[in-house]
């Protein structure tokens, strides 16, 4: 007894907890825990430890592992403990193994036998303990070992056992549905169990089953409706009431099931309307749980076959949620709105201002939810506003995960609804600028494709305008620091392709810019590669047009630098460029035709155009080509006449067609084709080009092709695009085959034509009618309609109008007057001052106009000093303690030492702690005073005793770290 403290644990354990609590750094904590691990390792292996001690060691192991340290040395002892006769030890053993082991752990096999035995025990508590373990530890392979017993237990006289058996069976179903398919009917049976707890538990597996296969359970609609009706009529035992609601958790589960069953099924839905309406009416919207049920009702309504009356009351409930001051309810309201607009899109308009408020709310969760809603309601009429907003938000956040999500949503919406290509390009520019490294590289290729293809209609002027504006915007952006690589690639490609197309910019200007880019990003080979190829294109266009090319000195040095690069890809591009510049206008024009990136590339798979050449070579005495399959392993080097490039290419190259690459895979340029076709497709990672280019470039540029029969070409085939492999052999007789400098042939029309029809200008003028927020609302919700009316319906919100709204244009004549009019309307309706936090409202039952406003009052805890630790500390003490808490984070330590008695405060009750001035319980405004608290309140005597005990134990909280014992109670 002497070693045992009042908390049922030994002094050692108390000391451990205490010293960990006082640890000032993670390192110190780790040291302490490691010491504890060593102690436990030693002790637990000792022979003949008393069982009670062993139990404590196991619990200490659990504790150690909770703190993140390896306790695996003790797993086996936990397993052994499950074999123990004593329920206490057995339970401890089971607890430890469920926390330590996963279902595939090797030790599980040692437990299965015990579980089997325990499931048959006469003591139902033993059975329960075993069922708990079953839920966690049994995997697919061991299910058969316990399945018969579990099924048997479904009929156990004790409801606690039946309940857990249902759960265990459900778990089996989740693990391996095939092994229990024949037992599914048991769930239906258990639905009719006498005990409401068992029935409630059965709803979980049934919900899963129904979600997977609705049609087999349509017959249960009536049963569920009846159950819900009975629950709502308070037929369940009183003990299931929670905050005056009859069994709300069960109601919620039932509503979830009904919404699945009634989805898209008119007949089933009709059976549910009445009970659903009743439930909705009965919801107590002053309590959190009441609103939870109400929210579930809305979800159900929006999932059923539409019923106007129910939709109406759902809409009312939503507007109550949205108008609430609780962020939780606003969140639910936004979520519910997102569901309801699917069947009733027009209700969004009614709530537009509330939605915009949520968009500007400081709560990130709410904001994200609202963006989700906006994403759902995007149409071609509001896409601009929504995407603008999304981009603004994307820029403002740091969370890469969410940034990526928003960026891809912007892209998706842009591609789907873009009103004009110009807008699309600008939007994409923004997305790339701020999240370019996060978006899928495909997006970059889509953008390039869009610019290359233009409107897809035969409107060349529009196309060239689009390109000019793209070029112009890129030239503006290009100088900015820290542009993402993907975006720079797009920029380089567009500048190379269209930089000089409209004649506004001189080649030397563009090439200068490109050189700057390459220099500024000298560590990014990909960007450099794009830049070099872009340079090549510009020079070739010049040569093809018959103009003389003068290379800027910086270009020259860039090319020199790059041709000595470690990256063979870069090297190759540099050599290509040098080679192209040396050719005549005709040849260049064939290699690099102007604006041909979208041309299909014809591929002559049989390489028939080489037949003549081969024939000639054979006549001259060359050996015929032997396919690889027929070749012996030995290389015939004598075949290879390295002096003649042409000859070399015959002998060195493999002439059978390379495997057709997948269109989306990158194609590679070869030195000879000089095609710049690579940019539209993902460029391979740096590890590949080395291989690729040895294979491709060695035979033609250097004369040492002898080795390339040995090259591993499997990687190459994957990487080579069509243009490459078809034109590779065409090498030196270069004009035989024309390769477009374009891209993948699998071009997809990228912009929705419907979106394009929408006139950009006309929408704009609508937007200007009212003040900014109104404007935003209108543009979001598509309303040209009646701005004033909307204004008055929710006028107090408008008064908060803020400048976040996108203010696109001014100056439409009508706009000014209507704007002033709207503003005056607003001022007539000042915001109702319900949110007065200065009023201490303590009970939640007091009648009030808006329960949530009132709850908000609950949070004003500074006014409310009544309940807290009144018994423990003297009245005079209380203010001290308060201030102590206020200072706790910074200077709490010295203070607390000065006030040894302050430990009293640590024993105030958890729930009364809600009203403590400095604690942090005020989240969300749903901290309703609990019945328990009202009846019980703080227990000063118990607290004092506990405190006394704590101090006797030598863990006086006033020592190093008061926070440890600040504890639940504030």
């Amino acid at each position, binding site marked *: 007894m002497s070693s045992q403290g009042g*908390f049922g644990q030994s002094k050692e354990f108390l000391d451990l907890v205490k010293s960990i609590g006082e640890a000032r750094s993670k390192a110190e904590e780790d040291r302490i825990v490691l010491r504890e691990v060593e102690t436990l390792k030693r002790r637990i292996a000792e022979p003949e430890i008393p069982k009670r001690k062993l139990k404590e060691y196991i619990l200490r192991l659990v504790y150690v592992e909770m703190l993140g340290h390896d306790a695996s040395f003790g797993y086996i002892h936990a397993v052994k403990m499950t074999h123990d006769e004593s329920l206490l030890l057995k339970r401890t053993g089971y607890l430890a193994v469920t926390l330590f082991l996963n279902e595939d752990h090797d030790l599980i096999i040692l437990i299965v036998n015990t579980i089997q035995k325990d499931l048959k025990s006469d003591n139902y508590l033993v059975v329960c303990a075993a069922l708990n373990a079953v839920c966690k530890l049994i995997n697919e392979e061991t299910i058969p070992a316990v399945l018969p017993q579990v099924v048997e237990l479904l009929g156990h006289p004790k409801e606690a056992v039946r309940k857990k058996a249902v759960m265990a069976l*459900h778990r089996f179903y989740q693990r391996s549905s095939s092994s229990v398919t024949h037992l599914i009917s048991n769930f239906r049976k258990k639905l009719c169990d006498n005990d409401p707890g068992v029935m409630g538990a059965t709803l979980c597996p049934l919900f899963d089953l129904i979600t997977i296969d609705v049609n087999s359970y349509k017959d249960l609609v009536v049963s569920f409706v009846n159950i819900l009706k009975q629950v709502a009529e308070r037929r369940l035992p009183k003990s299931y009431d929670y905050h005056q609601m009859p069994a709300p958790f069960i109601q919620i589960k039932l509503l979830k099931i009904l919404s699945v069953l009634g989805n898209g099924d008119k007949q089933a839905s009709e059976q549910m309307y009445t009970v659903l309406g009743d439930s909705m009416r009965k919801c107590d919207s002053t309590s959190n749980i009441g609103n939870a049920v109400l929210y579930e009702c809305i979800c159900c309504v929006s999932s059923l076959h539409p019923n106007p009356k129910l939709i109406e009351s759902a809409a009312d409930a939503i507007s109550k949620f949205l108008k609430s001051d609780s962020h939780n309810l606003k969140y639910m309201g936004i979520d519910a709105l997102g569901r309801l607009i699917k069947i009733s899109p027009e209700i969004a308009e009614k709530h537009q201002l509330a939605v915009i408020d949520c968009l500007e709310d400081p709560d990130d969760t709410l904001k994200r939810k609202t963006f989700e809603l906006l994403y759902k309601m995007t149409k071609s009429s509001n896409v601009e506003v929504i995407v603008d907003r999304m981009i603004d938000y994307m820029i403002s956040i740091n969370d890469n995960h969410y940034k990526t999500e928003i960026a891809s949503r912007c892209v998706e919406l842009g591609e789907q609804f873009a009103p004009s290509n110009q807008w699309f390009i600008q939007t994409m520019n923004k997305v790339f600028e701020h999240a370019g490294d996060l978006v899928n590289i495909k997006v970059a290729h889509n953008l390039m494709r869009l610019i290359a293809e233009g409107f897809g209609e035969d409107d060349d002027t529009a196309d060239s305008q689009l390109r000019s504006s793209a070029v112009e915007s890129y030239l503006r952006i290009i100088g900015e620091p820290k542009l993402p690589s993907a975006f720079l690639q797009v920029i380089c490609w567009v500048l190379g392709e269209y930089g000089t197309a409209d004649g506004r910019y001189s080649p030397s200007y563009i090439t200068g810019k490109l050189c700057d880019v390459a220099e500024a990003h000298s560590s990014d080979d990909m960007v450099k590669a794009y830049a070099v190829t872009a340079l090549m294109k510009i020079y070739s266009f010049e040569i093809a047009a018959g103009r003389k090319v003068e290379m800027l000195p910086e270009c020259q040095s860039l090319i020199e630098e790059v041709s000595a690069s470690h990256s063979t890809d870069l090297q190759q591009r540099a050599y290509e460029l040098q080679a192209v510049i040396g050719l005549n206008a005709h040849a260049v024009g064939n290699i690099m035709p102007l604006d041909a990136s979208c041309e299909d590339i014809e591929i002559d798979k049989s390489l028939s155009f080489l037949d003549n050449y081969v024939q000639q070579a054979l006549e001259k005495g060359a050996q015929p080509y032997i396919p690889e399959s027929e070749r012996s392993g030995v290389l015939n080097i004598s075949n290879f006449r390295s002096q003649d490039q042409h000859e070399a290419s015959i002998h060195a190259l493999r002439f059978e067609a390379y495997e057709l690459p997948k269109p989306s895979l990158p194609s590679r340029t070869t030195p000879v084709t000089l095609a710049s076709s690579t940019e539209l497709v993902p460029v391979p990672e740096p590890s590949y080009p080395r291989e690729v280019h040895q294979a491709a470039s060695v035979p033609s540029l250097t004369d040492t092709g002898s080795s390339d029969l040995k090259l591993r070409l499997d990687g190459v085939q994957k990487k080579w695009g069509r243009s490459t492999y078809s034109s590779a052999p065409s090498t030196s007789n270069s004009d035989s085959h024309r390769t477009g400098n374009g891209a993948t042939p699998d071009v997809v029309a990228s912009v929705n034509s419907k979106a394009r029809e929408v006139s950009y200008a006309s929408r704009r003028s609508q937007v200007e009618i009212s003040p900014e927020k109104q404007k935003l609302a209108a543009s979001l919700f598509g309303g040209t309609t009646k701005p004033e009316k909307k204004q008055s319906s929710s006028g107090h919100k408008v008064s908060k109008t803020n400048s976040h709204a996108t203010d696109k244009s001014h100056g439409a004549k009508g706009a000014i007057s209507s704007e002033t009019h709207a503003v005056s309307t607003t001022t007539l309706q000042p915001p109702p001052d319900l949110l007065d936090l200065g009023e201490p409202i303590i009970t939640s039952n007091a009648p009030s106009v808006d329960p949530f406003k009132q709850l908000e009052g609950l949070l004003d805890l500074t006014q409310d000093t009544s309940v807290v630790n009144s018994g423990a500390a003297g009245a005079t003490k209380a203010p001290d303690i308060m201030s102590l808490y206020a200072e706790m984070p910074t200077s709490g330590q010295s203070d607390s030492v000065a006030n040894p008695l302050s430990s009293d405060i640590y024993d105030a009750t958890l729930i009364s702690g809600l009203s403590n001035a400095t604690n942090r319980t005020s989240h969300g405004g749903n901290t309703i005073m609990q019945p328990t608290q009202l009846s019980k309140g703080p227990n000063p005597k118990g607290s004092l005793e506990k405190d006394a*005990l704590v101090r006797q134990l030598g863990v006086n909280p006033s020592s190093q770290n008061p926070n440890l014992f600040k504890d639940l109670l504030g």
Partner: protein
Amino acid sequence: MIRAVIVMNDQGKPRLVKFYDYQPVEKQQELIRTIYGVLCSRAENLSNFIQADSIFGPDARLVYKTYATLYFVFIFDSSENELAMLDLVQVFVEILDKCFSNVCELDIVFNFNKVHTILDEIILGGQVLETSSSEVVKAVEEISKLDRASNGSMLVPKSISGWTSR
């Protein structure tokens, strides 16, 4: 389905950790740290919900509630109702309060095995098993009664009289 229940104090020290899908110890610690970081960054008077898809994978939500120095955190997926989860946290804490009469952080630290027992009566295998607090309290009491009988020693801390009379 509920993925995890975590109780930690405002220093980020875990007090109760229960994952319903197995997570290796290191992963658990990482998750706890991440969650703690997120919770710390939340101002007061915001909603109690966090979309946790970046922490727990797609569809994960998180509900937290602060009681004195403790964060109670439930992580679950879209098949649960956020507001209801918030109330389930409340149910859990009310039950703790009943079982420990005036529960404080110390109770949870020193009796986490009992807290696990309580939690197991409420949530089993990630599903809500029982929501009636009196039912849970009844079940837990029966277990502790038997425990005490079988062991003859004290499990519950409230046996302070035994201590003081010693």
